[in-house]
């Protein structure tokens, strides 16, 4: 590795030729994906891309700045409802409504940063959890937000382009996701990112070094909420229907789990974690169809448990993954990747 001459080289996304090659290959694969695979897989990709956005945004807060949040479903809901209502009731076009709703989420994030400035880990986790629950419950009880019955999203037009099918939406969503992931990567390597990490490692030390805690903690919350709000606004159009119960505690837990499983403080890890867990989230329901494993589980159900409750195995699998990751590889998938790389680099010695 050659010496770096100034800070901007840190930010530069693709340094080596190999990196550029693999990035081009990835872009090519992503571009070909919706044209080669069946529509369901495109839907799955959209669902995953949304979670990638959330995981990256949440990692900026949890992994880089060291602030816990169990309330990101609240920001997600703000983005989803904000976008839908700004379009349906405010008559704004999508291209305006989405960033506005995300900005609204960011504002909420900045507001939540006020208590967060003084809170220690466990208190912060409960405060954010309470925030998330409050948002969901308020939305569900106010008729103007569509109440419990939820809202259907309006048609999506970008200028003359009617984004109607899953493939159309993929073509909108995935480039945006790639760009935002790279933007996040850029942020982590600037002064701002270094300030985040300094706060995480020791806020007192960071303050002594001249990092303005108020400004950077608020910024971390707002930025993270912005990403999540953006993802929420887009999610409304993946589903084309939103209702308050979706944005519950389970969703916040899923978000946090993606970041942790992927690896704290590692953006590629967040992408991987989001991909793995959103896939599991949708596909674990088919676990009984897996050869051998399915039959074994059925036998187990008959002898010890119940057949009618057998689908709950998905909870057990999910929970076990979380526990196992924390016990065996606290750096998550990213840690596993690092170890594998190191192992093969020195192989066979």
């Amino acid at each position: 590795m050659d010496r770096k001459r100034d800070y901007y080289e840190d930010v530069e996304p693709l340094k080596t030729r190999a990196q550029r090659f693999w990035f081009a290959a990835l872009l090519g694969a992503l571009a070909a994906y919706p044209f080669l695979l069946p529509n369901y897989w495109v839907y799955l990709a959209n669902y995953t891309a949304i979670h990638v956005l959330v995981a990256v945004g949440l990692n900026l807060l949890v992994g880089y700045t060291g602030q816990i949040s169990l309330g990101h479903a609240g920001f997600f809901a703000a983005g989803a409802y904000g976008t839908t209502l700004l379009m349906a009731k405010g008559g704004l076009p999508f291209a305006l409504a989405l960033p506005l709703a995300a900005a609204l989420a960011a504002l909420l994030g900045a507001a939540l940063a006020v208590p967060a400035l003084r809170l220690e880990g466990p208190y912060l986790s409960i405060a954010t959890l309470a925030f998330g629950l409050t948002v969901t419950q308020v939305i569900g009880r106010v008729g103007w937000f569509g109440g419990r019955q939820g809202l259907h999203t309006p048609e999506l037009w970008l200028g003359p382009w009617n984004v109607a099918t899953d493939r159309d939406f993929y073509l909108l969503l995935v480039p945006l996701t790639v760009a935002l992931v790279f933007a996040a990567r850029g942020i982590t390597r600037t002064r701002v990112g270094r300030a985040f990490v300094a706060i995480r490692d020791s806020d007192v030390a960071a303050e002594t070094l001249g990092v303005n805690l108020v400004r950077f903690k608020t910024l971390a919350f707002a930025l993270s909420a912005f990403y999540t709000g953006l993802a929420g606004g887009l999610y409304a159009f993946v589903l084309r229907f939103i209702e308050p119960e979706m944005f519950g505690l389970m969703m916040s837990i899923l978000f946090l789990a993606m970041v942790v499983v992927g690896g704290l403080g590692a953006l590629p890890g967040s992408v991987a974690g989001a991909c793995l867990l959103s896939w599991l989230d949708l596909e674990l329901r088919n676990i009984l169809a897996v050869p051998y494993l399915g039959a074994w589980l059925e036998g187990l159900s008959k002898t010890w448990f119940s057949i009618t409750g057998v689908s709950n195995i998905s909870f057990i699998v999910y929970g076990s993954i979380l526990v196992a990751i924390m016990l065996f590889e606290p750096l998550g998938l990213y840690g596993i990747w690092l170890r594998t790389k190191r192992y093969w680099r020195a192989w066979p010695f």
Partner: protein
Amino acid sequence: MSMAMARWWAVGLAALVLAGPAGAEEGVTDTEIRIGQWGPQTGPAAPWGAVARGAGVLFQLINDEGGIHGRKIRYQMFDDGYNPAKTKAGVKELQEGPGGIFAWVSGVGTAPGLAVRDYLRERKVPWVGPASGSHHWVSPPEKNLFALYPLYRYEAAALVRYLVGTGGKKRVAIAYLNDDYGKDGVAGAAAELARHGLKLVAEVPVEKGDSDLKPHVLQLKKAEPDAVLLWVTPTHAVGLVGTGKAMGLAPQWASTSSCSDLVLMHKISKGLWEGVIVANFTELPDADTPLMKKYRAAFEKYAAKDERWGVFFYAGMGFAEPLVEGLRRAGRNLTRQALVAELEKLRDFKGVLGRVSYQPFDPTDPLSRQGQREVFLTRCLADGKAERLTDWLTVE
């Protein structure tokens, strides 16, 4: 990815080859008809998931009797955990996967159903008998969506009519779950009371998470009702009756079909459910009709040993009956168009639910797609059995 891609190409090719004669309908082959359903097997709504398992037993019964016009039913049920995102994913996966789905049956819950309604409409896939009494299925009505479950509003109206008309009650109150289901109940009760020149004397919202029901009972008590409708979950209904009894509120309690599983209600209330009037949309669990006997035998034979012969289990069989009848009438040359045409001809079709009728599609007439319009009322007896109070009542 290349492996997956290659597989999908192979599947695509195979599908082209298998599709065979031109014009064969999606989800139908020479030997099978593919029917789909979603129902929560996990999460807080899982008790209603019995509907989806019940339908499975009916299809097994039909297959063992030789199927429908030489075709077996291939039933694809999945767990969505009552999460609309998962409902949509599952519906898409099955609908667009190899083989496709010919028609969807029931599907538990209002929110999951609303999340896929537009998708199924765009693809013109028939969907028969959503398992919830929400008014959304018929307002506005849709060509390929056949609602079945009597609207919660009908149930409310029937109960009010009985309480006011036969029971001579004047002060009717309601405790309702603060969601769509509860609010439908409030609307139905208020409308029927207005026809008698009365008003609800209290409307008390109950939240899903509420476990202490004293405040609700207190609010009800202030209105001095002589009858209270319970438009809540079974656990809340039992809590309200129990707390009410202890706090000196003893009106005539009346509740919806969601709490009509009297065996269960009697058991979890430790007997307090005695005397409560409920609306029923299915035959009683111990009914002696030939069809119910046959279904009970099928339950013994096919259902898992930990399954319970509950109302919502055999209601799941009932929700699938009109679809089966439509498939039978549509004959060997099965198309979606033929199915829809035959369903529209159903008049007073009687299975284990009430009578089911549809009309030719009329976008201005919700009733053209609302199959069942009748319920009957029972009172819970001391041993958890039901005393029939009325015959089937049709509510206009």
